[in-house]
């Protein structure tokens, strides 16, 4: 480094960056190395943690699929068409993202617990309150905006003229979407799904409100961390936290990898 060219300003900003990076690493490593490996593995294999892993994976995969299913058509409409109320709708869709998850959870609890719609759903066998189904609903509600945002900007990044050309080559609107826009959006959708899934795995507040915190029933990994922490079973809490850290790191890597490779056509 040429000292003459490096200003104090540069040194100060880089120093702050280094400090904060070191802080993050220390916090994470502190969790992962807290328990001896043997204890950690024993906890991983325990019935409770196994249950939490399974429940977390199942609920997060289903809620992610639901998010994709809903986000794709909504994002396409918002990216391509103009219609009355579009601006308002764009804002509405983002609200759950800005809302504290606990508040979203209370809203969901009231909607599914006491509203006529919720009651008739429950009567029809779709009970969301204090059930694993509620976890899926909570994850879906809180994470949909993330999927929607990524998907919308992905579709906006595809020049509509590709679709125009497809239509002059015999495609209907739906075929042009299916054969051109969707394949061209693949990387963006993948990146959005990964981030949605990893947020789903970590979802806590809304799920806690709607599905409750019942051991071995609605006990996802974050709930397991919370329950075990509050009952003093620190090594179980650490095990849950370690798995969550690993999932975060891997999914961030995948997001950067595929999200970073997203071509803007």
């Amino acid at each position: 480094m040429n000292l003459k060219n490096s200003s104090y300003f540069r040194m100060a900003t880089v120093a702050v960056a280094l400090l904060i990076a070191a802080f993050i690493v220390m916090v994470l490593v502190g969790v992962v190395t807290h328990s001896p490996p043997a204890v950690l593995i024993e906890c991983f294999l325990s019935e409770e943690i196994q249950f939490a892993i399974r429940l977390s994976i199942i609920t997060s995969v289903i809620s992610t699929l639901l998010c994709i299913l809903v986000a794709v058509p909504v994002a396409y409409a918002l990216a391509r068409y103009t219609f009355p109320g579009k601006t308002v709708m764009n804002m509405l869709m983002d609200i759950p993202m800005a809302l504290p998850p606990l508040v979203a959870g209370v809203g969901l609890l009231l909607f599914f617990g006491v509203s006529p719609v919720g009651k008739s759903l429950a009567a029809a066998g779709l009970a969301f309150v204090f059930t694993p189904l509620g976890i899926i609903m909570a994850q879906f509600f809180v994470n949909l905006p993330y999927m929607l945002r990524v998907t919308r900007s992905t579709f906006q990044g595809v020049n509509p003229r590709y679709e125009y050309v497809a239509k002059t080559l015999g495609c209907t609107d739906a075929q042009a979407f299916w054969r051109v826009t969707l394949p061209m959006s693949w990387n963006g959708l993948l990146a959005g799904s990964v981030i949605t899934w990893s947020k789903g795995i970590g979802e806590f507040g809304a799920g806690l409100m709607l599905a409750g915190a019942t051991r071995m029933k609605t006990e996802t990994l974050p709930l397991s961390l919370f329950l075990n922490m509050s009952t003093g079973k620190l090594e179980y809490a650490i095990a849950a936290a370690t798995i969550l850290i690993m999932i975060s790191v891997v999914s961030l890597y995948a997001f950067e990898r595929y999200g970073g490779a997203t071509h803007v056509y």
Partner: protein
Amino acid sequence: MLVIDSVSKSLGEFSLSNVSLSVEDGEYFIVLGPTGAGKTILLETIAGIYTPDAGRILLNGRDITDVPARERRIGMVYQDYMLFPHLTVEANIGFGLKSRADPAFIRGKVEESADLLNIGHLLQRYPGTLSGGEQQRAAIARALVMEPEALLLDEPLSALDVKTRENLRAELARIHEATGTTIVHITHNFEEVFDLADRVAIMRGGDVIQVGTPEEIFRRPNSDFVAGFVGVENLFCGTGSGDGTVAVGDLRIRAENAIPGPVSVAIRPEEILLSKTPLPENGKNVVIGRVDSVRPNGGLVRVSVDAGVQFRVTLTRQGFEETGVAPGDAVHLAFRSSAAHVYPPGEEEEA
């Protein structure tokens, strides 16, 4: 025949206002205009991407105004190729045939079309690995394989480098000859007109201002805008006197179609002779002036002469050297009365 009958379309900042054109079967028709003239909207409206707000579009006698793009049998090629990046060149060219026929038929048609464009060896490649010229060939092949009744080209040569552009321009002429497809080609580049166009329409601000053969547009522009656009640098306001002359300042210019009243006079800079010695009149207009400036421009030299009004003269480099003039010299200018083109003034003038 492709007929655009009083079509209007408003689309934010771009619009078409009451555009009428008719393109003959097998004609190579160029729409020329500056950026923002509404050229692309015109093509996209013809292709069926947009429905006109008013007016009709007819293709070979069939009213296609409300026919969806997929059923129009009109091909579209954009400046930026718009090849589907996730498909090979072969799949791109065969894209429109996919739902129709068996694989052997598609393969045959794709190869035929690729051969016509000389890209048979690129079929297994992806668009991202091709040069601009190759991509544009693939895009043209993709449109032609559908055997369209009309082919629309949106600035097809503008994104290419000079050499590739010349090659592809020759290619377009050859393809037009070989297939006989009716082509509507839009551009802002006047160079493409002489090589390719049977007829030209000049557009500006959503209006068609003049339609004619390249020669007509070039020699007989109908407005200051067209004259300026096709490189007529001498544009004068004058008054026609009804005796075949136009008064421009203190000058009297003989012009073939000098109409009485206020007029504009357009004289192409390369149609003016320049000499230090007096030039024989022979029925020509002769003007005396003083050289203001001399600007070399590639193989040409542009000379500006003050003769009461400002004349611009373009000479070849050799022609210029033979005159031996320098700034400040008194010079004689001469041009035929047929070189002075007169039209009503102030047409299409907008702020």
